[in-house]
């Protein structure tokens, strides 16, 4: 049995928390000094799509055919029904089914 909270683990968590809090507060703080010109506005408007694509695309490509097909199914579900909940269920179901019938990935 080990302790409820090991001190070296706590130290590691503090370091991880510090960089994460700095990220959450730092961007907001920095924008205090950056006027929102039309150019900056366009950059901010492009952020949601850019972050989504940058964070997901390499993971999806690496995930192979099963993940790609599941993501495509989730997007088609969203185009038809505009319901994120349904999209998540469809994505999970397609992947689970594909793996159940023997596709790997």
């Amino acid at each position, binding site marked *: 049995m080990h302790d409820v909270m090991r001190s070296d683990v706590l130290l*590691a*968590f503090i370091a991880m928390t510090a960089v*994460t809090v700095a990220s959450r507060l730092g961007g*907001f703080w920095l924008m205090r000094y950056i006027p929102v010109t039309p150019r900056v506005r366009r950059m901010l408007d*492009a952020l949601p*799509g850019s972050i989504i694509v*940058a964070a*997901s695309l390499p993971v999806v490509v690496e995930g192979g055919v099963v993940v790609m097909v599941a993501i495509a199914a989730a997007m088609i579900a969203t185009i038809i029904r505009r319901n994120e909940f349904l999209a998540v269920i469809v994505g*999970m*179901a397609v992947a689970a089914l594909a793996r159940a019938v023997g596709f790997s990935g």
Partner: protein
Amino acid sequence: MTTAAKQADHLHEPAYWSRNAIWPGIYAIAPMLPGTLAFGLAFGALCAQKLFTLTEVEVMMAFVYGGLSQFVAVQSWPDQLTVSTIATLALLTATVNIRFALMSASLRPWFGTLPPWQSYPSMLLVTDGGWLAATRYRDHGGANAWFFVGGGLVLYVVWLVSSVPGFLLAGQLTDPKTYGVDLVMPAFYAAMLVPAWKGARRAIPWVVAGIVALVVHRFVGGYWFIIAGALAGSISAGLDDA
């Protein structure tokens, strides 16, 4: 107040607090709750396998509060914690979570109109899903701060409890991929991308972001691809002058 009003985006009204946006805010993040629970389940199980205590897991959930960064850190948790391995963990966490800086930056035109004692604590609630939902609300002219904070608080509480069942059931959980749990976040992201589509021209930054992310993922490694792709996409939108 006058300087704050000047900083406010001319397209939108300044932030205010009114409780009638609490439920719409919660409703907007509701599609994420099953995914959050599934992610927490898988994460709790992973932590149990890596011999963390439940207290440790909950401290990490409560303070780091970055699902992907926690997953990545625990997966590569060193056998021996030293100054050097802790610094490595902090750097890894930073590469995964630096995207939160872009997200909170984009909330400045809205939350920057509030006093700092209200706006800065609110930024601690920035997550992928909460931010995406709030951004859509803002795009439709919303300004009620409770929309973001209400949804964010619910996501936070659900997140805190989500890892407990997985931790306790770790022995019984087979590969979560069997149930498609690994698709939860990508599928949600893909769904959020569809309504963001405003024509091919506005999607050029997405293509730039995707190409840069793939290249960095392939040749640099680690998790730098997230911030590199996101920044490249955003900058390309800024350069597109017409």
